[in-house]
């Protein structure tokens, strides 16, 4: 069951990153896609406080990444190589999400909101996955 959950999460992450690539590709290659993306951007900006949402999601993901990493450091001795690499990927994905969201914008990239959202999903899934693995690692060592 745990293994299935892990595989599903990996697939979701991969789908998010692949989705970001595909959306960006077709936004640059197909007029209909570009206009649809722009139309959605305009709608979101009209209906939601996008800047506030952006800052809030960034703050939550950064906070969670730091928390999970601190937990991991506490249990570093019990951690295997996989857990170490999961933490590295977590930090990388959070960095990717935050740096892209801060550096890029709707003016420089038409699919900005879509890409930011998908990077955010990938980072969030990785944080969840790593957090669960760190907690389970702690549980195992407590049982010993």
């Amino acid at each position, binding site marked *: 069951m745990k293994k299935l959950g*892990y595989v599903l999460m990996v697939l979701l*992450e991969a789908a998010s990153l692949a989705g970001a690539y595909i959306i960006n590709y077709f936004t640059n290659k197909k007029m*209909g896609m570009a*206009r649809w993306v*722009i*139309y959605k951007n305009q709608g979101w900006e009209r209906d939601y406080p996008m800047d506030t949402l952006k800052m809030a999601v960034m703050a939550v993901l950064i906070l969670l990444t730091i928390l999970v990493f601190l937990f991991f450091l506490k249990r570093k001795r019990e951690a295997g190589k996989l857990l170490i690499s999961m933490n590295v*990927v977590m930090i990388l994905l959070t960095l990717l999400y935050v740096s*892209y969201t801060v550096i890029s914008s709707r003016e420089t990239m038409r699919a900005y909101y879509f890409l930011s959202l998908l990077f955010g999903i990938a980072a969030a899934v990785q944080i969840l996955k790593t957090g669960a693995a760190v907690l389970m690692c702690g549980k195992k060592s407590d049982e010993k």
Partner: protein
Amino acid sequence: MKKKLVSVLLCTAMVASLAVGCGSDTQEETAGENTEGADAAEEESDVQADPVDTKKVYVTPDWVQSVIDGNQEESSDYVILECSWGEEEDSPSYTKGHVPGAYHMNTDSVESEEMWNIRSAEEIEQLLLDYGITKDTTVICYGEDGVNSADDRVAIAFLWAGVENVKCLDGGLAAWNDAGYATESESNEPEAVEEFGTTVPAHPEYIISIDDVQDKLENDDNFKLVSIRSEAEWLGETSGYSYIDRAGEPEGAIWGHDTDDGSYCNDDGTTVGVDVLEGYLAESGASLDNELAFYCGTGWRAAIPFLIMYENGYTNMELYDGGWYQWQMDDSNPVQVGDPASDDCVHTTVGELSTDKAAE
């Protein structure tokens, strides 16, 4: 363990490939200007064609070749534009072989993202200067074929700006190829100029705003708002666009048929005469004597009947650039759904329309 490792590697590879994908920018190869250095132009050609009036828009491949060959008055100062959406490298009608000396014109350069209306006067002027175009330069636009209206869209923007002699290659690249004239595939880069020669826009009267359309619909019986959209769009069955959720037409509009379905093309792909437009208008009791404002979704298709009237010397026509896209953005705007001549036509407002009519 191995599977997990593979998963981690997969994620890293995705991130790396995204970084590459996101950062890719277009690279422009450059070549000589106009026909100089083009293989195709090196072939001997000396086409003679009858001169055409400055106001004539749709011109034959023979005429364009005669300009290239130096046999027209326009030969001394002209620019040929292959007009299509997207970057040059993504335009097959440019990369697979374009009219010798042509530059690629991305339609996004003339339209702003907000409403897909023609960009500001300052932006259009800068664009013209970047392409080496002054008010006296003859601009020859062409698209993929006769139905494609990218070239007409660019043509009307440049007429609005003040370019005095704007042409469209009638039948587009397809007609050029059918005529057997040479093409080249290398990229050409325009040489910028510093002065356009007049204030942009020189002809603001060619474009009518949504506010003026609303005012004239209410107060001017001679004014006709003409939809250049498909029958399905006209009847409110679909918005016609993947990015527009609502379907319908501005209240009071009449139907002028669609250009995308070939209604404005002859069998050989060339543009129809003004008599065909007259016939379409007559179906709704309108005529070429009315003040006519053409519109479509975002201003491409509607450019064609405008240009047909323009080249026939009419001055009583406009382009309602915002089209259905801009109209359906205001919930309070009045709308008709269905044929207004029938009893089934629903008269409502944008806000009451269903939002499931986007084209798939």
